[in-house]
């Protein structure tokens, strides 16, 4: 696992984080639930909590879908290619490429290769980018959520050991009621 330079993280006084969606996207409740599930995966192994807010002005994290050049100096590149990007703490910027075809899978499947390679599993990308929002960099462990690439049709949403060790290095494990350090991730 790796971190951003200087190992930025959310301050101890701010471990109950709020997130909001850019209203312009008019996302359905079904899409928003995908992000809620993705946040829960990180909350399960840390002392962090995530709550949805309706105000992007007050939220710690703002999530939006944008196409092409969207003003942050990192333009998206059309279908496939770069899928999304997110900033390190405490900026809370999470952008996804509006030119992608996104698949909303059922929550029961944690790892799967679908027979279609032309759509991208939304929850897999969301879990990865939330890792960046919390302070993790990329990992060379192919099984890890923080591995930089994912093929169309692949679904990988359960945190691997590498991800859990990295995030608990930053925030601890949140106490016995949370999933312990040893569990998690397909062995």
């Amino acid at each position: 696992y790796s971190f951003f330079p200087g190992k930025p993280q959310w301050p101890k006084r701010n471990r109950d984080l709020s997130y909001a969606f850019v209203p312009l996207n008019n996302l359905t409740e079904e899409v928003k639930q995908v992000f809620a599930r993705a946040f829960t995966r990180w909350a399960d192994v840390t002392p962090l909590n995530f709550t949805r807010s309706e105000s992007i002005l007050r939220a710690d994290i703002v999530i939006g879908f944008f196409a092409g050049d969207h003003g942050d100096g990192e333009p998206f590149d059309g279908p496939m290619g770069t899928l999304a990007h997110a900033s390190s703490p405490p900026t809370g910027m999470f952008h996804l490429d509006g030119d992608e075809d996104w698949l909303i899978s059922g929550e029961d499947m944690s790892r799967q290769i679908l027979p279609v390679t032309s759509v991208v599993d939304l929850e897999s990308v969301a879990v990865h980018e939330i890792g960046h929002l919390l302070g993790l960099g990329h990992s060379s462990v192919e099984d890890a959520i923080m591995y930089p690439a994912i093929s169309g049709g692949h679904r990988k949403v359960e945190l691997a050991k590498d991800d859990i060790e990295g995030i608990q290095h930053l925030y601890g494990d949140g106490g016995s009621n949370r999933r312990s350090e040893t569990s998690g991730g397909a062995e």
Partner: protein
Amino acid sequence: TFYTNISSIPPLHLLNATRSAWETFEKLTGCHVGDKADGLSKLKQYFSRFGYIPAAVDNFTDDFDDVLQSAISTYQKNFNLKVTGKLDASTLGQIVKPRCGNPDMIDGTTSEMNAGKKFRTVAR
């Protein structure tokens, strides 16, 4: 577009993916240092985007030079590929995969993925 299950996904030709930005790189298979090939400048932009080429280097030519060879070797280390410094099929197969837009390296030098780690081999 959001598809809520596999059966709702239209045939491939109706989807966006057929126009992936990086498919063109596959024609560079087999290139190595000393070659000149149309499209190498775009591949250098790719490596610069993900931090494998220092920001100070910005005149991207179609020459397969040392800067590109070094970027490829570091990329191969980070993605657990055989480190050849060449554009072999497995390396290009990895390059064209969709990915996160965040960089892997900082300015071509600093990484905490494989390329930045000193592997400690412990005699057991």
